[in-house]
């Protein structure tokens, strides 16, 4: 049976991969897909700790994480459609004027 550290490290690798994708990709859709990969890493971590403590609270927490992920995806995709309608491109660099 793999111990908790394997699951934690796996979750951390998924989180780091998502972070790299979010920072380096320029396509808005792929950036938000990367955040979903980060969510997967977090869910693995939460469930691993839930199992370590033999408690079900971590799984309930992961369930609420799913809700947040759905909310985030819905709003982010609505925003992406709006931004795409305005500029006609999905390039995040196009909006770098918002950096100030």
């Amino acid at each position, binding site marked *: 049976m*793999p111990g*908790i*550290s*394997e*699951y*934690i*490290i*796996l979750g*951390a*690798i*998924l*989180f*780091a*991969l998502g*972070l*790299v994708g979010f*920072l*380096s*990709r*320029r396509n808005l*859709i*792929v950036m938000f*897909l990367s955040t*979903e*990969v980060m969510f*997967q890493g977090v*869910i*693995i971590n939460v*469930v691993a700790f*839930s*199992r*370590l*403590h*033999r408690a*079900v*609270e971590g*799984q*309930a927490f*992961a*369930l*609420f994480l*799913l809700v*947040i*992920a*759905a*909310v985030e995806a*819905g*709003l982010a*995709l*609505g925003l*992406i*459609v*709006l931004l*795409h309608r*305005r*500029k*006609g*491109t999905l*390039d*995040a660099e196009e909006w770098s004027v918002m950096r100030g």
Partner: protein
Amino acid sequence: MTASTAYILYLAFAIGAAAVYLMLPRPERSKAIAGALLGVAALAVLITLLVARVTEPGSTRAFFCIFAAVALFAAARVVTHNRPIFSALYFVLVVLAVAALLVLQEAEFLAVALVIVYAGAIVVTYLFVIMLAQQTGSPVYDRQAREPLLAVLIGFLLMAAVAGQAGALPDTVEQGSVLATQTGPDSPASSIAEGNTAAVGRAVMTKYVVVLEIAGVLLLIAMIGAIALSKKKVPSEQVRTARKPLGQVGKEVAPY
């Protein structure tokens, strides 16, 4: 985790970081192939490390290795593929592998919920938006990553910081310690006798019922927000500038 294991782990992270750096979208294709080879090497080192730590025979570890490898490969492809639609499809593979890992951790209800919510709903929404917004051919922003070296360095540092802590974690929590919760190993909340779905359902519907209501309100707000966002009429800057006389293009910002 011994010191030598930790060093091999860091080595695997470093190889993996180099692999992701080379695989990120860039004009030259040859570097991507070298990155893929490095990525396979990093995965191999990680799995050897896992197999070397085996203490008792059992199929669980083999399944863990397989699904972890699938999840990592697919996640790397989500991040590095230069066509968004393939990124979305590889993300489905990530979700399926993670669901399998949740089954290994005795979280069956969550695994099924993950597949239904993610693979069934969220990815479909993503695919719709990709098809709505996709341009013909492969645009330049999909072929050229932004600051890949910096991003990979940040990811590697994060990994090194987390892995240093994760190695020190205990594999079980003793009863009576600070970490132990009230539900012990023999309590019905965690035992198989009741079933995972019933246990999660009981926790959500009794202890966290207020949170459940808030989650429902949040979903409602998001739904209204998404409808309001996508109903809004936004003037396209392209169309606006195209209609202007030639001398005035780009002189003023279009009113919102």
